C-alpha cells in the first residue's frame, strides 16, 4: 500500500513538472509576452519599448534558465537600471530582492502576479479560500441530493419513479453551468427577484443565502445528474443480488432491506465517482465564478490567462494538477478501504 502511494506521488511530481513546462512554453511565446508587456507598460507602447521592457525583466533569457529560476534551481537576477547601473527590484510591489537569490517553488516562493500586483502566494491563498467555501456548499447540496435521487431511482428498477428520475438526471447532465446559470438567473433573479445574480458581495460581506444560492445551485445541478446515475446503476445491481432477495424472502420489510442491507453496499461505487467529480468541478468553478463575479480561484485563473500573468498561471496549473491527482489517489485508496474484495497491489 505504501509503495503504491509513493509511486503515485512520484507520478504526480512528474506530471507537475511536465505540465508546468508546457504552460511555461505557451506563456513564453512571443505573442503572449507582447500581451504581458503591453499590459505592464501602457496601451500605446512602441515596439522598442516593449522589447526593452521584456529584455530588462529577463523575459528574453534562455528558456530553460527562466524555468530553472521559477523552480528555484537557478538564481533570480535583479534588474539593472540602465541609467544608474545599480541593481533594483524586479517587481517592486512584490518586494523582489535586489541581490541574486535562489527563490522559486522549491524555496516556497510562487513568484509575483503582474496583474494583481501582489505576490502569487497571497493572492492564490485568498482565491483558494473563497473557492473552498463555494466548493463546500456545492458538495453539501450536490452529494446528498444526488445520492437520494440515485437510491430512490435504483430501488425499484423500471418503475415510474425510476423512469422520471432517470430522465431528470439525464436532463441535468445536459445542462452545462453557463446554461443553468442563465436559466436560474432569469427565473430566480430577473422574474421572481428572490436571489441575487451577483456574488460579488459574498467576499466582503460574508456568505448569505441571498447572494450565494445561485452559484451553488448552478454548479451542483451539472454534477447531480452524473452522480445520481452512477448511484442508480450501483443500487440496481445491489437490489438484484442474492442477499437482498434472501432478506426480502425472510420477511424483512422493503424499507428495512433498503436502509440496512442495500444502502451500504450501493454507496461504495458512487464514492469513487464523487471523488473523480472534483476535476469537473474545477471547470465549473471557472464558469460560475466569472458568471456570478465571485472572486475565487476560477476568477483568478481567467484574469491571469487573459493578461498572461505568467507566475499566477503556473501556480493555478500546479494547484489544479494537485487537486486532480490527489482526488484520484484518495478515490483509489478509499475504494480499497471501503471494498475489502479489492486490494491495491
Amino acid at each position, binding site marked *: 500500500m505504501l509503495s503504491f502511494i509513493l509511486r503515485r506521488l512520484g507520478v504526480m511530481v512528474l506530471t507537475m513538472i511536465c505540465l508546468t513546462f508546457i504552460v511555461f512554453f505557451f506563456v513564453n511565446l512571443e505573442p503572449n509576452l507582447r500581451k504581458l508587456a503591453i499590459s505592464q507598460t501602457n496601451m500605446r507602447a512602441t515596439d522598442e519599448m516593449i522589447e526593452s521592457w521584456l529584455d530588462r525583466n529577463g523575459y528574453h533569457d534562455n528558456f530553460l534558465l527562466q524555468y530553472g529560476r521559477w523552480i528555484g534551481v537557478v538564481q533570480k537576477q535583479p534588474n539593472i537600471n540602465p541609467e544608474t547601473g545599480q541593481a533594483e527590484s524586479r517587481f517592486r510591489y512584490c518586494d523582489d530582492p535586489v541581490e541574486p537569490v535562489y527563490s522559486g517553488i522549491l524555496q516556497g516562493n510562487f513568484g509575483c502576479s503582474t496583474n494583481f500586483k501582489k505576490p502569487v502566494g497571497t493572492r492564490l491563498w485568498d482565491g483558494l479560500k473563497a473557492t473552498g467555501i463555494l466548493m463546500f456548499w456545492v458538495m453539501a447540496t450536490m452529494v446528498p441530493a444526488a445520492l437520494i435521487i440515485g437510491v430512490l431511482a435504483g430501488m425499484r428498477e423500471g418503475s415510474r419513479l425510476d423512469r422520471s428520475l432517470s430522465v431528470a438526471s439525464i436532463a441535468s447532465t*445536459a445542462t452545462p453551468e*453557463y446554461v443553468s446559470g442563465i436559466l436560474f438567473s432569469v427565473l430566480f433573479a430577473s422574474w421572481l427577484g428572490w436571489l441575487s445574480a451577483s456574488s460579488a458581495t459574498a467576499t466582503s460581506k460574508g456568505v448569505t443565502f441571498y447572494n450565494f444560492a445561485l452559484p451553488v445551485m448552478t454548479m451542483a445541478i451539472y454534477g447531480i445528474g452524473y452522480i445520481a446515475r452512477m448511484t442508480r446503476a450501483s443500487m440496481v445491481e445491489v437490489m438484484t443480488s442474492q442477499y437482498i432477495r434472501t432478506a426480502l424472502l425472510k420477511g424483512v420489510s422493503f424499507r428495512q432491506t433498503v436502509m440496512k442491507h442495500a444502502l451500504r453496499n450501493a454507496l461504495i461505487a458512487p464514492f469513487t465517482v464523487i471523488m473523480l467529480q472534483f476535476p469537473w468541478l474545477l*471547470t465549473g468553478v471557472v464558469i460560475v465564478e466569472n458568471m456570478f463575479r465571485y472572486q475565487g480561484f476560477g476568477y483568478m*485563473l481567467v484574469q491571469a490567462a487573459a493578461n498572461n500573468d505568467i507566475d499566477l498561471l503556473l501556480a*493555478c496549473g500546479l494547484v489544479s494538477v494537485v487537486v486532480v491527482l490527489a482526488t484520484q489517489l484518495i478515490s483509489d485508496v478509499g475504494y480499497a478501504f471501503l471494498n475489502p474484495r479489492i486490494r491495491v497491489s
Partner: protein
Amino acid sequence: METIGFFEIIAGVVSRLWPVWLAGAIVFAMSFSMRKRLGLYGQLIGNGIGLTGVLICVFWLFAAIFADIVAPFGARDQLAVMKNAFPGSIDAQSGLIYYLGGDNLGRDVFSRIIHGSRVVLVIAPAATLFALMVGMTLGLPAGYFGGKVDSVLSFLANLVLAFPVILLFYLLVTPGIEETIIPKSLAGFFFLFPIIFFCTLFYTRFRTQPEKLSVYIAVTLLVGGWVYAGLVFGLDPLGIMSLEKGELNIFVAVVFASSPGVFRIVRGLTLDIMTRDYVAAAQTRGEGPWYIMLWEILPNARGPLIVDGCLRIGYTTILLGTLGYFGLGMGPESADWGTMIKDGSQLLRLYVWPALVPALALMSFVLGLNLLADGLREESLKD
C-alpha cells in the same frame, strides 16, 4: 413598435420551420415502415427515451441543413430599430417579424440560433470523430501490448486530463497563438491518425490480396490526403474543405481535450475483450497483433464506443459553448450558441431572450444526444 401575441409567435416559428417538419416526417415515415429491417436503429425508435433523442437530434440536423430557408434573416444582419426588440416585434419597413426578439446589436435571435446550429453540427461531430480515431489508434496498442507503451501513453493521457480545460483553451485558442505554427503542427499531427488508422485497417485485412489492398489504400490516401491538405494547409484544390484560422484552432483544441477520454475507454475495453476466447483463437491461428486489435477486438467494442460517441458529441458541444462563452476562438460576431449566450448574459437583467433562447437550444441538443445514448445503451444491453 408593433408586436404579435404569444400564440402567433409559436405559429410563426412552427411555420418557418416547415422544411424541417417535412424532411423529418419523410425520414420517420420511412424509418417506421422499415423498422423491422433496420436493426439497432429500428429498436431504438421503438423505445420512448431513444425516440425522443432521435427526434431532437433529427430536428437540429435538418434545422442546420435548411438553415438558409428557415432563417428569415442572415446571421449578421443588423437592423438598428430592432435593438433589444421584444419577441414578436414587427419591422415596420419590411414587415418581417423578429419571432424570438432582437439582441443588443439588432440581430434576429431566431435566425441566429438556426444559423448557429450549423457551427455546432459541423464542428462537434467532426471533432468527436477525430478524437475517436486518435483514441482508438493509441488506446488499442496501449491495452493490447501493455508494458512500456501503455505506461507512456497512459501518462500522456493523464497529463492532458489533469489540465484544467479552461486553462488549456486559454493557452491554445488565443489570437496570438493563431499566428504561430502551433495550431497547424498540432492539426498536422492529429489529422494523420485517421489516415494511419484506415491504412492499417485495410493492410491487416487484405495483406494477401494485393489488388483489393491497393484499391483501398489508394482511396484512403486520396480522400485522406485531400481532407488533410484542405484542413491543415488550406490547399484544397476543389475548395470544399477549408477552415478559417480560428476554426482550425478550436477544432484542434477540442480534439486535443477529448481524445484522452476516448483513449482511456478504448484501453479499458481492450483489456477486457483481450481475455475472450476468440482473441486467443486468433492468436493461435497466428494472426498479427494489429489484425487482432482492429478486426477482432474493435468490432466487439463497438457497442460501448457508439454510446460513448453520442455522449461525447454532447460533451464537445458543451466544450464549444464554453469556448464561445469565454470569447475564445470564435469571431466576435459568430452565431455559435456559446458566443450568443455570452453576449446575451451581459444585459440579462433587462432583456432575457438573447441569452435564454440559445441556452435552451444548446440544452435541447445535448439532451437529445444524451437521451439517444441512453436509448442505445438500453437497447444494446437487451441482446
